[in-house]
C-alpha cells in the first residue's frame, strides 16, 4: 500500500502525544478526553494491522463504555474543581530519568534483536474478521469465554453492592420505628392485662 508509512507515523505521533497529554494535564476531564483520542488512534492502528473486529471492539468497549464511565465518575465526584496541592518535589525528578533508562534498555534490546526489517506478510482479506474470531472463540477458547462471562457477572454484582448507598431504607426505618413503639407500649401495659 503506497501511503502506509506516513499513516503509521501520523498515528504513532498522535498516540504518543495524546498519551503524554493525558499524563501531564492538570484537568481530569482533559485527561479523559486525551485518553479517548488515544483509544481511537490505537483502534485505527488495529485496522492497519488487520484486526477489524478488535478495532471496533476497542471503540465500543474502551472509548465508548469505559471512558464514559470515567467521565461519569469525574462528574459525580466533582474532581475537576478540587484544588491540586503541591506535588512531592523529588518524585518527577527521580521517575523521569529512571524511565529514560528503561526506555534506553528497551531500545538497545530492540536494535540488537530486531531480526529482519521486513514489513508484515500479507494476510487474507478475512483475517481478523468477526466470523473467524467467533469460530475460534466458540471452539478452541470456549472455556476462557465462559469464564469471562462469569467474571462480568461478578463485576456487575460487585459494582452494585459497592456503590449502594449506606443509608437505611425506608422499610428498615419503618420497622425500627414499629419495634420501638412496641417496646414502649409493652412497658406501659401491666403484666396481667397483656394480650398477644
Amino acid at each position, binding site marked *: *500500500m503506497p501511503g502506509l508509512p506516513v499513516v503509521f507515523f501520523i498515528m504513532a505521533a498522535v498516540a504518543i502525544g495524546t498519551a503524554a497529554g493525558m499524563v501531564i494535564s492538570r484537568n481530569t476531564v482533559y485527561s479523559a478526553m486525551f485518553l479517548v483520542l488515544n483509544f481511537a488512534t490505537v483502534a485505527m492502528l488495529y485496522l492497519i494491522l488487520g484486526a477489524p473486529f478488535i478495532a471496533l471492539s*476497542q471503540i465500543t468497549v474502551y472509548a465508548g463504555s469505559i471512558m464514559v*464511565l470515567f467521565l461519569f465518575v469525574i462528574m459525580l*465526584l466533582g474532581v475537576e474543581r478540587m484544588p491540586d496541592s503541591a506535588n512531592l518535589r523529588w518524585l518527577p525528578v527521580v*521517575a523521569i530519568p529512571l*524511565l529514560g533508562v528503561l526506555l534506553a534498555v528497551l531500545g538497545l534490546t530492540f536494535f540488537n534483536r530486531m531480526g529482519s526489517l521486513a514489513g508484515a506478510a500479507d494476510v487474507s482479506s478475512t483475517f481478523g474478521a468477526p466470523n473467524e474470531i467467533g469460530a475460534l472463540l466458540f471452539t478452541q477458547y470456549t472455556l476462557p469465554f465462559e469464564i469471562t462471562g462469569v467474571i*462480568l457477572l461478578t463485576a456487575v454484582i460487585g459494582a452494585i453492592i*459497592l456503590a449502594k448507598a449506606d443509608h437505611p431504607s425506608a422499610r428498615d426505618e419503618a420497622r425500627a420505628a414499629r419495634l420501638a413503639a412496641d417496646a414502649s407500649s409493652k412497658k406501659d401495659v401491666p403484666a396481667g392485662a397483656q394480650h398477644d
Partner: protein
Amino acid sequence: MVPVTYYLALSAVMFMIGILGVLIRRNSLVIFMSLELMFNASNLAFVTFARMHGGLTGQIMVFFVMTVAAAEVAIGLALIVEIFRTRHTIDMDKLNSMKG
C-alpha cells in the same frame, strides 16, 4: 511497508508513558486512566504479534484482556466512589491509612 518492530516500539513507549502516569500523578482517577493506557499498549503488542505470525491467537487474547479490563474498571470506579464517600478525597498521598 512499515516494519512490525515499529509497532512494538510504539507499544513500549505507550507503556512507559502509562508507568510514568502511575508514578507521578496523585489523582486516583488519572492513575487509573494510566493503567488503561498500559493495557492498551499491551493490546497493541498482542495484535502486532498476531499479524507477525499470521495467527488469530493474539487477537483472541486482546478480546479477553478488553473484557476483563472493562470488568475491572467497573469495580475500581465503584471502589473510588466509595473511598470518596468516606474519606472525601481521592488524593493518593492522603490515602495512606488502612484504618476505617
